[in-house]
């Protein structure tokens, strides 16, 4: 019974698995980084 309670508590704490390109975050993230480049590029919406 004791073991079952631990299991239930643990289940509620674990975030769902995630599909990630690269690697998976496991803890609380502390930075959100946005990045870009080559903004103007080749294509302009001419028509």
């Amino acid at each position, binding site marked *: 019974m004791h073991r079952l309670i631990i299991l239930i508590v643990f289940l509620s704490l674990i*975030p*769902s698995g995630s599909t990630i390109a690269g690697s998976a975050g496991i*803890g609380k*993230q*502390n930075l959100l980084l946005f990045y*870009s*480049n080559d*903004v103007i590029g080749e294509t302009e919406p001419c028509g």
Partner: protein
Amino acid sequence: MGGLSKKAYQLEKIQGLYEIPYLTVDGGNLLFKHERIAPALLQQMTITAEGIIDAYNLMQYDAVAVGRNDLAGGLSFLKEQAASAQFTWLSANLVHKSDKKPIFSASLIRRFDNLTVGIIGLTGHDGKIQFQDNEDAVILPWQEVLPDYIADLSSRCDLLILLSNNTTKQNQEIAESFEEIHLIIQSKPRSGNSAPKLINKSLIAQTGKQGKYLGWMLIDWQQSKTWGRKGDIKEMAIKKQELDGINGRISRIERREKKEDLAANSSYQNLLRSRERLLSSIIFLENELHDLKKTGHAPSTYENNFIALDIKLPDQPDVEKIVKRIKKDINQAGRSRAAKAATSTGRPEMPIEKFVFAGWQVCAQCHRPQTAFWEKTDHSSAYQTLVEQEQQFNLDCLPCHVTAEYETTKISDDDSVLLSLPAVLQQVGCEICHGPGKTHAASQDPSQISRRPAASICLRCHTPERDEEFNYENDLERIACPAGKR
């Protein structure tokens, strides 16, 4: 440029999802398409560049590296733009020739609650960019400047980011040389998305060309200041996914079966045992990582995403207004130049006699079925689409929407030709595919006209950048005029 308002919308949306500090950076090549721009295009490119800076100010960018293309308007132009930018232009190696001090900022430090981030900028160096003597500027190789900046910043920052306009090979060399750099945001022009790749101790990442993507990373940066081994972290993610699956199956059985029958249900009991085993291993991994965190050895982790800034995505209204203003101003500038040219020549448009083209109406006199077919194609209304978008004086758009010699469409100093075309050349007419037809019209000699356009002719405009789906054989068949001499 059209993706700016979509990028702004996504930035706001994602920032709203996570209540954590954020940093917005750009690897460079922000303002111009090429390292050199034709003088005729300078005015409208300047309008665009100024608008992009306004949009980046609104998006609250932190830092942008000086890319080689950003210097196309001249160093003094970029200095003027830097003065109106609310973000920092970074380049550690674009320096005054006289004292070797950076012309823009070499680096930037951002401090958050428990995290100090250092950012260094590098301009691509291959010795090709030549500055005027009075500009007192030179781009130094990274080897000459990076050691000092890295030594300084790595002692003051938890996380060190390099925005680099260098080639992939050079960036990999940098990563091999300096393990203090944790992340390299690359801005190699005309490259695709490149998901973070670990080289030595640095991740190297890049978003795709032409501003079509926004990259974002959720980072859990730990005291260890090293990226975690993929194996351990992936294993954890896989086990959690397995656990989700098992929990789902257990729930389904519990809903389906009576409670008193569950003890005798062997599938159910097997699933419970599997769940217990899985949980034990997850707890073991969690504990291991928890202990590592306590001792400051837990690996740092990240989650990377690319968002395609598709035309269907919503726009951020304020940035959308800027994009519309840029387009309006560009058209207005072209219109003024056309009016000026008309005043000086005394004619609103250049006479057809000045061209090697006869114009589609001359072709129509003999080739009626073909002309009737062409009139139903997008080629015949190509100029009209510019009129509808109010871009008919945009020199960047015009070359692919009219009948003009390709040499002319490359934009020379004399842009009055494109801005003052006679009405019979304001379409992608017959002679774009079949070649100039004046001689053929006079002689009616079939050998003086080309029947089938070479792929290279179509590809002048239907480039992969502009028309991803273009297929020469298929599209030629679709656009080909009906057979028959007349």
